[in-house]
């Protein structure tokens, strides 16, 4: 009887250890995370639509059904990445995520010059280089310093009703995600 109790007690302590280990390993070993899902859909520096297209399931969770969204993967080790999208839409917002899907930085259209979507994601070291002499084409950009290499940038745009669908779809389809050498 004492041995059985002992075995159950050891089991419970083991359960606590397993709980902690599994919890900490889930992010490392998840094959369903946002990065893996995006990697299956598109290559680096390609804007991909995240909202559910007819006939295919939503690739990324937690996208509001009244929003359209697009994302691209980048690697700052290659250079800076500039994300732009033309034209006015009722609301847009941008988030920069690291490789594991952690939100590093976010902003919305109120932060941008004249509401134009134009952002540059770069490392602090690249920022120092840019500060020395601002290259052409970066005058109106929002600079996002991110101490990461690989990451994801997501652009979301609000679709208030049916009549806005073509405009918002065009906004995202014409968005670009370009590697900028310096």
């Amino acid at each position: 009887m004492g041995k059985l109790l002992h075995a159950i007690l050891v089991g419970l302590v083991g359960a606590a250890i397993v709980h902690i280990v599994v919890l900490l390993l889930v992010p490392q070993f998840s094959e369903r995370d946002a990065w893996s899902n995006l990697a299956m859909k598109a290559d680096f520096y390609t804007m991909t639509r995240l909202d559910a297209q007819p006939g295919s399931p939503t690739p990324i969770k937690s996208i509001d059904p009244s929003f359209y969204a697009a994302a691209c993967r980048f690697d700052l080790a290659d250079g800076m990445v500039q994300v732009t999208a033309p034209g006015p839409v009722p609301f847009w917002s941008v988030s920069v995520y690291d490789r594991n899907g952690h939100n590093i930085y976010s902003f919305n259209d109120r932060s941008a010059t004249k509401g134009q979507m134009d952002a540059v994601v770069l490392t602090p070291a690249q920022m120092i280089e840019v500060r020395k002499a601002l290259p052409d084409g970066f005058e109106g950009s929002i600079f996002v310093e991110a101490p990461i290499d690989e990451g994801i940038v997501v652009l979301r745009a609000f679709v208030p009703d049916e009549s806005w669908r073509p405009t918002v779809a065009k906004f995202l389809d014409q968005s670009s995600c370009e590697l900028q050498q310096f």
Partner: protein
Amino acid sequence: MLKNALLTLLSLAIAIGLGGGSVWYTLDAQSGAGAIRIGPWTAFPDIGTLDADPYSQARVARQGALTLGRAEGLSFIAETDSRGEDLLRECSYTIEGGFPTARFWTLYVADQALDPIASGRPHRAVLHSHEILRQPDNSSVITVAPNAAPGNWLPISGSGPLRFVMNFYDTPIAASTGLSDVKLPTIVRTGCNG
């Protein structure tokens, strides 16, 4: 000898079964560390950030979610009504009250996995603050029901568990201060089919 082997096996079974099962359970529950509860609504302001606790981090990785950033908005989820009873798709609800400050908000119905439920009709199962009808005191009454209702109507259909997801965009409540003063609408069950 055999007894010892069996006891070891029991210990291992308890450790792996209970340890793994408890992680799986806590990751599916809409509560736990980092949650802020306002009435029936739950939000995870830190989810998806580097400050998040290990549970929130595991939840994000497992769902493959890209959560809203602080400057984008804050998401609230309800899985019970204001009396604490589970939300069901075969029931009708009234969502009533004022909404906190935000540039706009959206409200939609979702299933247990938080995937939006399609209404199956031309009227989408989504409402947002730009299209909503308001009371003289600026509050709103939203009817969630399978059949069309006057005023603000959010269609639902089918049966099974139901979640309400309310997203506030460009809102000061996403900053961690002041979340305790936020008032969210109540959810009242008005009737059920069958």
